């Protein structure tokens, strides 16, 4: 037990936990951006299927390969394939692999969110003469966000845990530092408990903030008639 308390606030482990958090935030952010573009590409209605096809291919590929394999590909595979021309450090490799992987999942989540918005909204926007771009930006996406937040919160919590895979490519995050300590002192159980505690702390805080975010975008209780017009940007006085 004393080993547990001795290492709970051990500096390298704190540094590792911080990197886990930073990696998660950056990778999730990039993943959302990638996913947004992919989702819009998938939903595009151009006569040429290229955008839809490319988006589908990306999602198929990065959902189909395990994240661990992607990490190893970026860190070990690319240098060998390019004859050591492109060698990315462990943190860079981790961010790239995590973002690419996350982009595929976010694409599906955002696409589902967009499809959940009442199609009548798009018709109304068209009737008002709004362009596709304007409609998407100002009518569809603001409403889609409400459907996107819960699964995205889920993804972020997964992301916090997925960063632990980067330990195999020597990324100095939480699990990596935990392993270095127990490799030297053979205290596997206390050290792994320390790691578990820190992961739980971060995921619990993330869950709390997800709840807060959901509250802010909540669909307030209104009468049926007024609910139809309760959208951002539409002033009820015009009814």
């Amino acid at each position, binding site marked *: 037990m004393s080993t547990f308390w001795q290492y709970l606030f051990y500096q390298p482990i704190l540094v590792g936990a911080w990197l886990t958090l930073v990696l998660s935030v950056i990778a999730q952010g990039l993943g959302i951006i990638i996913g947004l573009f992919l989702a819009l590409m998938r939903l595009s209605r151009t006569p040429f299927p290229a955008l839809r096809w490319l988006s589908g291919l990306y999602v198929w590929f990065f959902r189909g390969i395990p994240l661990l394999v992607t990490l190893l590909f970026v*860190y*070990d595979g690319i*240098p*060998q394939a390019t004859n*050591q021309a492109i*060698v990315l*450090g*462990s943190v860079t490799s981790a961010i790239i692999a995590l973002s690419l992987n996350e982009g595929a999942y976010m694409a599906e989540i955002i696409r589902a969110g967009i499809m959940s918005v009442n199609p009548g909204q798009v018709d109304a926007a068209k009737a008002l003469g709004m362009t596709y771009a304007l409609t998407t930006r100002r009518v569809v996406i603001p409403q889609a966000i409400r459907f996107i937040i819960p699964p995205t919160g889920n993804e972020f919590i997964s992301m916090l845990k997925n960063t632990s895979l980067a330990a*195999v490519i*020597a990324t100095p995050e939480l699990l990596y530092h935990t*392993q*270095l300590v127990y*490799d*030297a*002192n*053979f205290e*596997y159980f206390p050290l792994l408990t320390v790691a578990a505690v820190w992961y739980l702390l971060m995921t619990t805080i993330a869950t709390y903030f997800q709840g807060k975010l959901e509250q802010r975008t909540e669909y307030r209780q209104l009468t049926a008639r007024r609910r139809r017009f309760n959208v951002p940007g539409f002033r009820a006085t015009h009814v």
Partner: protein
Amino acid sequence: MRANLSPFTLLSVPALILAVALAGCGSNNSSNKSGTSTKNLGLKSAGVLSVCTDATYPPMEYVPPSNPNTIVGADADLAKALAKQIHLRANMINTSFDSIIPALQAKRCDIIMSSMSNTPAREKQVNFINYMVAEEAVIVKTRSSIHSNGYAGLCGTTVAVEKATTELDGLNQQNKSCSKKINILPYTADTDAFQAFYNGHADAYTGDLPVVLHYISDPQYKGKLRKAGNPVKLNEPYAIALRKSSGNLKSALTTALKTIENNGTYKKILNKWGVGTASLK
């Protein structure tokens, strides 16, 4: 209407599963049916000497590309020779080096034979039988400007190493007297460490001398690698690791080791794998 399941019925299923699982966990005294006395060696499986080894360390223990289902090397051959001496069959079990001691303690195997050095920290966890001399060396690319006897010249460079090794300890020790710190990159498998170095993630790789020599003389790296300088001879020889409770097995193996040292088998195996100079005089 379906009758409610009584609590007894509900509990009986997990209880049954638990009973079956526990039955399989009974400790196995080597009751050798052939009649030769195996003196209650406390083996994991009767008639078999289970050996944990991290097969990422050519030529000591590794998985040959020609047959991914076996483990070969000096340690594998030595283990087989020792097992034969005490009328057992050796079974090599590939185990990650940084979790190899808990694997032994959890009885996933009976001994560790994995180029493991006999260090004081490890002595607290296991018992040892010394069997070979250990030296550490550093590999750099031929065109590198690094020259280092031991780890002295590695300050300020990036070095790839396997986790939980005496090399890692040595680098950490060197770092205490480095003004510009060594950037140490530990990896779970030694082959990962070497690959990381070769791919350019690190300027140097450090491992035991037999392994270093093996990589340098490997045809696929011909001319690309060299030793950084003189190797470091450790005071901590390679040793077979056993559980603290394996007194009988330790005596049996110590005698077996003496026998194969005396009858030339030991030297023959070491020479076969190119590590003849590392024999325990």
